[in-house]
């Protein structure tokens, strides 16, 4: 009883070494985990942003197309089938037509670089223009598919949208990772829009 109360010694060398080794291992695990957490959080955020960006384009095109009087695919600065034109009547004055154009633009005309590829929207009928509000970046053509494609055999105009946002391959190549960050961050737009009436 007296020995226990009056104990004044610290840990033995073996105890200290075991403690240090355990703490070292735990630190490695914890710091590694925190770094992984940070990387994953960044990757997750990028994936969510890419998916949301895609959803915005598809949703905007689908809503506009429902009321459209004209739904067509034009040639743009980046080649044939790269511009989607939607014409809708002005709710305030049905004799006036509102135009919305979505154009895929590969600024350097090099399909191997995604950093300068954008989708722009504009309110003018100017398929050949490169101007407009950028609504999507880091996009690319999907294989040999047309960006905007109008299939035949339908009763009303139907437009298929084929685009990829982010990394083009999985695992991602260095060229794409330079823009999207490490890991596979990508979203495939394979959507369709059509008129209601």
């Amino acid at each position, binding site marked *: 009883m007296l020995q226990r109360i009056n104990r*004044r010694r610290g840990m033995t060398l073996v105890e200290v070494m075991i403690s240090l080794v355990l703490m070292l291992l735990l630190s490695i695990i914890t710091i590694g985990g925190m770094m992984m957490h940070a990387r994953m959080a960044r990757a997750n955020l990028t994936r969510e942003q890419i998916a949301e960006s895609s959803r915005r384009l598809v949703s905007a095109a689908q809503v506009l197309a429902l009321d459209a009087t004209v739904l067509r695919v034009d040639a743009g600065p980046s080649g044939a089938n790269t511009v989607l034109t939607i014409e809708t009547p002005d709710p305030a004055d049905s004799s006036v037509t509102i135009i919305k154009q979505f154009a895929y633009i590969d600024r350097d005309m090099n399909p191997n670089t995604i950093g300068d590829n954008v989708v722009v929207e504009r309110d003018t009928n100017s398929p050949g223009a490169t101007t407009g509000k950028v609504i999507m970046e880091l996009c690319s053509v999907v294989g040999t598919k047309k960006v905007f494609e109008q299939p035949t055999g339908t009763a009303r105009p139907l437009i298929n949208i084929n685009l990829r946002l982010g990394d083009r391959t999985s695992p991602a190549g260095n060229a794409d990772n330079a823009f999207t960050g490490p890991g596979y961050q990508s979203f495939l737009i394979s959507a369709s829009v059509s008129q209601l009436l």
Partner: protein
Amino acid sequence: MIRFLDIKSNFACLAPRTHGMTFVEVLFAIAIAAMLSVGMYGSAIYTMRQTARNIEHTYALQIVSSAAAKVRAANFSKLTGTTTAADFEHQFFTNAPVSADPNVVNGNAFTLGYELRGFGTGIKKQNKNWSILTIPDKSADWEKNEFAGHVLAVTAGKGANQVMAITQNHKSMVKNGIKTVMVRLDQTLQDPEAGIDDPTDATGPAVSWTVEPDSTSVFVVDYGLYCDITTTWGDGTGYKTLTETVYAPTN
């Protein structure tokens, strides 16, 4: 001396601590830190899985809304008739797997299904209020009062170009291999709740067709049809379903 020791042992816990942690205390602290670390890893993994689920849901929305666009663009006569494999409309009669992103190995496959309803051929008068509609086997079942308050239009066959209001409808049924549904019709649209839910009841104003329809009469609801589009993905606890109903007008 004994008294002094007793007092000291009684107040030992209040005395200033003069020694370091014991080995057991250090191990205990490390164990707590390890548990926190495991929790952090778990949180990171959960976040990653949740993000993947969000992306899958966005893909599912894209698949369903695109399928709705295709239904709207389809030829109405082929939606309600027969198709061949070469027809655009043929896809609506098969449950096809859809790959959201072919780059993702072991990614979830989405299954897309269509159910069309709101059309048929054959109107037989049961009594002065109720009629029996014949709907195709391949079309989806009608739920009770699903089309109450909607419009029934005869588009071809005997009695074409006439319109009636559906005030009530029973659930569709199959009898002798023929799928039928009983509907209460009226010249004007009435409150479905105010109607009589008895197919033998013939009170109230009689339905008065200018030309009485028969088994050749082709009818549609609301000058079109309705299509339930369903996409499913995942399995086990991760099994998910997303459904959208789209209206496809005649063209």
